């Protein structure tokens, strides 16, 4: 193994001048030359659509791929809560620096300072851009933009469009993308799943995509490839993600030489709906904004069988308010989720499967009135009612933590380029700004900022400096080999002819991960987890059953390929979690906690981002990106 991590390429100078310095010094492609370059974007979520549209506007030739039937279906559409920006429209003390600091602190001091600062710096432009596109952010009665507050911060910097912020932002970028399609700069390949990256000597030259209707494997060549394939939280099977969210693009890039940053750093959302039975296919998120008015509690007695309305105040444990008096019910996600798990595992869980805690609006309805609650949360209450058949105006909601967001992902430098030259990763697919825990409303922002404001500088810089060392024939040879390998892989899967479906494997994998590599982890457990995953992988190779047709729609084959990648990634997640002898952010190792049960970082030994790479024989190796905090000092992350 002689792989080295590439440079982080952080520009010199003071924090607040780095991005300006970069922009002033990066190489450009002149307008007349841009159409000579072909760029592939995998994904049409906020990150992919914004990048593709922006590059198309500049004059590049862009091809954009999605397995969905329309670009508008990407899972960004499901984000409810909001998007952060340091506009300080509320005059409540916000600034770029404060937003930067909140994000660094929220991430438990495990992200690169320069990237995080740039995120905060570009946040304002995103709001301007979205409003110009016609994104209907909420307005106050004076006609100005309204804001609300999200977990983990003390200012109001969250912009929102009812409970549909992700949908509205995505439609903004989808429409910008459709505009480019109509102008001919950009082509969108819907129902195309990317299955491999074509590389030569760690340089990207294109992708292999499978047309989901015809099963045809297509080779698409390009001067640069951008992966914007979203998060892989669906690896836990039960999660807040959509059914088809997957790790395949990311994982296949990893196997082609890109590196993975902190694959085990996963956020569990504290307010999703609990599992009610084995048939369940997903866990629906209830917006975090509910925690502004709802109070979280469990009965003080174990296995209390009484209805919540019959449990008097004296028998209720408002554990968040008790443990975190200054943030209370708005404590950050990792802390809230862990606290819920602690109560549930202690035997205080509620609901038919004893796997939930209460989120109660009784006091808010009493103090602020029914009309106020209806106005603010009406649609969320309706949704709760639709899904559970229960009435949250009369009884408390039941919520529980669910796998939600992947901080981990493809490692990228300051230019958002992976270790493979010409292969970029943006949005939730990369590891960049969120460190070990993401603050609410920061990831819509990151996906947009990456696509609208960063890629349009860093990608041309790459293209302009690129020397065309590889000849066309050489590239085509690599493409054909790549395609052949995928063809063989598909054949193999259809020929197993076993007795267990892809979903059955996926559900089992999810259970293993929740148990051993979930909200809290131990060295012992992770070891067992790895053994269990290896066994499941072996069983998959022996016992998978899928229909054999490969030249027409085969949804089971699509699932099987995703599960195959999940099984491989799961092992790396456990390795990553095992290696980290500390607790930080969402990564909680039971061996490392304070007396009060809070995460205990080990800064001396672990002030680094774990960066994994694979060698030719398929073994994983750990490299380290040391985090040198020049501009902030690491403190204990306290929300008490």
């Amino acid at each position, binding site marked *: 193994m002689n792989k080295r991590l590439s440079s982080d390429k952080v520009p010199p100078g003071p924090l607040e001048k780095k991005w300006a310095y970069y922009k002033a010094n990066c190489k450009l492609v002149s307008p007349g030359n841009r159409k000579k370059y072909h760029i592939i974007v995998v994904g049409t979520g906020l990150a992919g659509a914004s990048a593709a549209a922006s590059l198309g506007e500049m004059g590049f030739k862009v091809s954009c791929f999605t397995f969905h039937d*329309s670009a508008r279906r990407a899972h960004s559409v499901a984000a409810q809560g909001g998007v952060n920006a340091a506009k300080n429209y509320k005059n409540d003390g916000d600034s770029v620096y404060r937003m930067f600091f909140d994000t660094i602190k929220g991430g438990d001091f495990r992200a690169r300072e320069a990237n995080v600062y740039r995120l905060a710096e570009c946040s304002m432009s995103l709001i301007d851009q979205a409003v110009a596109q016609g994104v209907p952010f909420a307005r106050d009665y004076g006609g100005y933009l309204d804001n609300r507050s999200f977990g983990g911060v003390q200012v109001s910097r969250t912009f929102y469009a009812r409970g549909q912020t992700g949908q509205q932002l995505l439609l903004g970028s989808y429409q910008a993308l459709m505009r480019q399609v109509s102008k001919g700069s950009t082509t969108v390949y819907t129902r195309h799943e990317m299955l491999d990256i074509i590389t030569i000597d760690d340089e990207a030259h294109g992708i292999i995509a499978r047309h989901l209707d015809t099963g045809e494997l297509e080779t698409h060549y390009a001067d640069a490839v951008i992966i914007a394939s979203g998060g892989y939280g669906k690896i836990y099977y039960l999660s807040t993600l*959509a059914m088809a969210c997957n790790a395949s693009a990311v994982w296949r890039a990893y196997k082609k030489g890109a590196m993975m940053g902190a694959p085990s750093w996963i956020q569990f959302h504290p307010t999703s709906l609990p599992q009610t039975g084995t048939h369940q296919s997903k866990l629906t998120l209830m917006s975090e904004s509910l925690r502004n008015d709802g109070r979280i509690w469990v009965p003080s007695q174990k296995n209390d069988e009484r209805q919540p309305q019959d449990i008097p105040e004296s028998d209720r444990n408002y554990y968040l308010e008790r443990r975190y008096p200054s943030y209370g019910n708005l404590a950050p996600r990792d802390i809230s989720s862990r606290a819920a798990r602690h109560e549930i595992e202690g035997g205080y869980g509620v609901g038919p499967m004893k796997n939930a805690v209460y989120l109660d609006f009784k006091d808010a309805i009493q103090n602020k009135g029914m009309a106020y609650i209806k106005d603010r949360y009406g649609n969320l209450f309706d949704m709760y009612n639709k899904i559970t058949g229960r009435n949250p105006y009369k009884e408390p909601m039941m919520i529980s933590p669910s796998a939600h967001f992947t901080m981990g992902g493809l490692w990228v430098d300051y230019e958002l380029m992976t270790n493979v030259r010409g292969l970029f990763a943006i949005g939730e697919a990369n590891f960049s700004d969120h460190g070990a825990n993401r603050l609410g409303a920061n990831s819509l922002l990151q996906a947009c900022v990456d696509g609208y404001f960063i890629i349009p500088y860093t990608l041309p810089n790459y293209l302009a400096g690129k020397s065309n060392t590889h000849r066309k024939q050489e590239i085509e040879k690599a493409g054909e080999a790549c395609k052949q390998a995928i063809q063989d892989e598909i054949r193999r899967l259809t020929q197993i002819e076993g007795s267990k479906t892809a979903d059955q494997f996926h559900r089992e994998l999810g259970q293993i991960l929740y148990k051993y590599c979930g909200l809290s982890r131990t060295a012992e457990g992770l070891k067992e987890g790895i053994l269990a995953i290896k066994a499941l992988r072996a069983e998959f190779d022996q016992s998978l059953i899928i229909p054999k047709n490969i030249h027409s729609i085969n949804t089971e084959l699509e699932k099987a390929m995703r599960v195959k990648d999940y099984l491989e990634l799961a092992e790396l997640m456990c390795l990553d979690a095992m290696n980290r002898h500390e607790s930080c952010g969402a990564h909680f190792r039971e061996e490392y906690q304070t007396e009060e049960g809070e995460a205990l970082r080990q800064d001396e030994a672990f002030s680094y981002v774990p960066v994994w790479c694979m060698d030719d024989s398929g073994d994983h190796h750990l490299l380290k990106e040391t985090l040198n905090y020049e501009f902030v000092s690491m403190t204990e992350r306290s929300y008490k």
Partner: protein
Amino acid sequence: MKVTLKIWRQSDKNSKGQFVEYPMEDVDKDMSLFELLDTLNERLVLKGERPIVYDSDCREGICGQCGIMINGEAHGPLMNTSACHLHMRSFNDGERLTIEPFRSAAFPVRQDLSIDRSAMDRIIQAGGYVSVDTGQASDANQERISHHAYDEAMNAAACIGCGACIAACPNASAALFTGAKISHLHRLPQGQIESDDRVINMVTTMDDEGFGNCSNHATCEAVCPAGISIKVIADMNKLYLKQIGKG
């Protein structure tokens, strides 16, 4: 509970389809309809039969990917609710559910319940956007927008692009979908500037794609999971007539 699923099976765009019945026992009433279909598919795969193809991704009513006719109604029996939000408790024990794809000339069947709705993307391509390049925008608070205008814009912008309005319409008109985008953008100063061209281009594309004309049945409004009001069609017609009149 027990139910019988009577499902449309069609192996590809060009073949003739037919209904096939699948009795389902031990159905949990808290299961969603798609979870029941998942269960059925697992059974089919294990038996070596071709599983049913259906579209559904987010399963929380927002991506617009699901869309099926259930007992003759787009998205099923609950008003303003997408199919993925239907749970078996909405049906009776012993009931027979007839499930088929959205039917419209503009929506060819891909397989079974899955349809091709790319015509809707092409309507948006014809003008369903604001012509602003990245980086051109001025400060977001520079232009005030009344709370009312924002509210109306948001009501229209909520469309999830599922196509139920088209499936429910006796004329297979896409007026609700198209009107929603025209109305959303027209209510905001950022979008208004291009309203005139937008309405002509989008309506023309709608016609070219083979969608029918609106004759005010309002069945679209009743099935729309996003609660889009037929007021948006009036908005569209008003703008359209103004343009035609000009010509």
